[in-house]
């Protein structure tokens, strides 16, 4: 038996479907509402899964999210103002595990995990029901020590590739990948618009020479059309800012509608 994450991708592959990965900031509190942090996040995850999300990325809010655009920055600020911390985010994972087996991966910045103790974070994260972690400010060159920990603990440490990942770096990154590979669709940060997905398509094709680990494309996927275009190049798509924008505005219904539309569009495109 594989991990929840591996099993999910295997199941989707058997069904000929693409993965829809939804990012939700831990401690997100919709506009106008007081910070009822953890419970609101648990409910958002429950609803996102029901609307069609295959995998949830649980964002650990950080004061200086270097790889994130304005929407996730704003969500992080609001979550931190509401008192979100790393231990509380682990509590959210534990709550979700009471009713769901949806694969859950944390996405956060290295300083917070380092300060907590990376190994302690992995141990407690796994016990809380997390399946892996994405750390966008640690490139492959700096992750050997972390990989040693995650491998020993049976936890996934996601690798990144971008249109600029080439040659030996691409080969090395792919060979050590686990869970899924986060394929950054374009130059920039999260939440950018109007992307030509053919560039990352070429990158995905290159990655395929070195690994069978699933490829998921993220950054800038805001509509069903974009999701379908991106998914055609890979095994799944990651949607963050578009969903978070609606949640931040207090439009939970619209956020869930978007997830539902993407789910339908992805499934329809795969049947063709």
């Amino acid at each position, binding site marked *: 038996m594989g991990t929840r994450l591996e099993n999910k991708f295997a199941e989707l592959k058997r069904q000929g479907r693409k993965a829809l990965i939804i990012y939700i900031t831990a401690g997100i509190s919709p506009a106008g509402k007081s910070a009822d942090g953890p419970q609101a996040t648990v409910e958002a995850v429950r609803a996102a899964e029901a609307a069609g999300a295959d995998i949830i990325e649980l964002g650990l809010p*950080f*004061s*200086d*999210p*270097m*790889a994130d*655009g*304005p929407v996730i*920055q704003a969500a992080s*600020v609001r979550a*931190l103002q509401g008192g979100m*911390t*790393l231990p509380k985010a682990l509590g959210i994972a534990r709550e979700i595990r009471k009713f769901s087996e949806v694969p859950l991966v944390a996405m956060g*910045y*290295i*300083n*917070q*995990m*380092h*300060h*907590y103790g990376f190994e302690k974070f992995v141990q407690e994260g796994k016990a809380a029901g997390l399946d892996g972690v994405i750390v*966008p*400010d*640690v*490139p*492959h*060159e*700096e992750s*050997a*020590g972390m990989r040693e920990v995650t491998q020993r603990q049976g936890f996934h440490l996601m690798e*990144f*590739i*971008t249109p*600029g*990942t*080439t040659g030996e*770096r691409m080969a090395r990154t792919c060979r050590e990948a686990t869970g899924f590979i986060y394929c*950054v669709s374009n*130059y*920039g*940060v999260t939440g*950018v618009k109007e992307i030509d997905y053919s560039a990352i398509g070429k990158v995905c094709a290159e990655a395929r020479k070195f690994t069978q680990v699933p490829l998921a494309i993220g950054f800038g996927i805001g509509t069903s059309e974009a999701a379908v275009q991106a998914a055609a190049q890979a095994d799944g798509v990651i949607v963050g800012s578009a969903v978070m924008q609606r949640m931040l505005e207090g439009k939970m219904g619209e956020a869930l509608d978007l997830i539902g539309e993407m789910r339908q569009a992805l499934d329809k495109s795969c049947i063709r």
Partner: protein
Amino acid sequence: MNKKGRFGRFGGQYVPEIVMPALNELEGAYLKYKDDPEFKEEFSSYLREYAGRPTNLYYAEGLTRHYGRARIFLKREDLLHTGAHKINNALGQALLAQRMGKKRVVAETGAGQHGVATATVAALFGMECHVFMGAVDAERQKLNVFRMQLLGAKVIPVSSGTGTLKDATSEAIRYWATNIRDTHYIIGSAVGPHPYPAMVRDFQKAIGEEIRAQSLEKIGGLPDYLVACVGGGSNAIGSFYDFREEPAVKKIGVEAGGRGEGAGDNAKTLSGAGEPGILHGAYSYLLQNEDGQVVEAYSISAGLDYPGVGPEHSFYKDAGIAEYVSVTDEEALAAFQRLSRIEGIIPAMESSHALAYLEKLMPETSPEETVVVTLSGRGDKDVQMVAKVLGEQEGA
């Protein structure tokens, strides 16, 4: 741990994957040109002809008399073109950017000195220039904003986070990540991912090399003390580096003690509550809370309120190569006025921190000894702010 670009355990390359190819390209260019005779000659020619190096090692007779102890010399980086040591690094990086074929430069700035230096070299070399500046800083350093615009730069105020230097830095990195193929990021201090800390230090190390030569000439030996202010720490590392293997030359970095000991009241990264952590690409001492969130730094000086510090300084601290101390806003303000009155030199608020430490250091020194203070910049930019603060104090 990646051994590349480390100072002991500090440093490294903690950046998004999208930035890595650019860092590798930059490292390649830096390694190729740093010892290239043609590059070195071009760089030193610009430093000499355009920026005004070497700067004087000025014997501050009045200040020496004031304390009545060791002789005090001032390393006059304030006399450089654009008014601060920042031009050394901006020139070096712009020359590298040219060789890498980059058409645009981007920079972050706190007090605006680095932004002005970058805008200046961009004008000189005909490159497009974008400067990110915290909205709060842009307000308190309006004159520098106008200077940058006059030089043809686009100044982008950053209001995300707390609207100061660390947010401007994050935003500059985001912009760089988006435009990485034709843009070079000129980091203003000896911070950030490898190769920046080593490269910026190399572009600033002329300060220390000149101090050595000028000391030998003027006092017939090496100074006993080197004192420099530390925000990110580029003027300090530039001053200390050439003396790193000489314990007889005591190296003292002075941080901003701000308005008190509380979190968010100072920028005492090395001399206060900082713990090793990762911000803006490097593992170094960092002001952070118990959840690992970066704590906003505070200082009266817009150039020192950075919650991180250059990784080489973290190494110097742990290895005992240099000592790190702090002075408060109030002490720095007093030093600002003291140097103006006694020497007729208005120092930058940043440099005033180094000068303020003389109050504590001088009583421990003897007349045979020599103290060199790096006067990293001139204080014209701070005059308005100081007038306001002093006015408020008098009114109170």
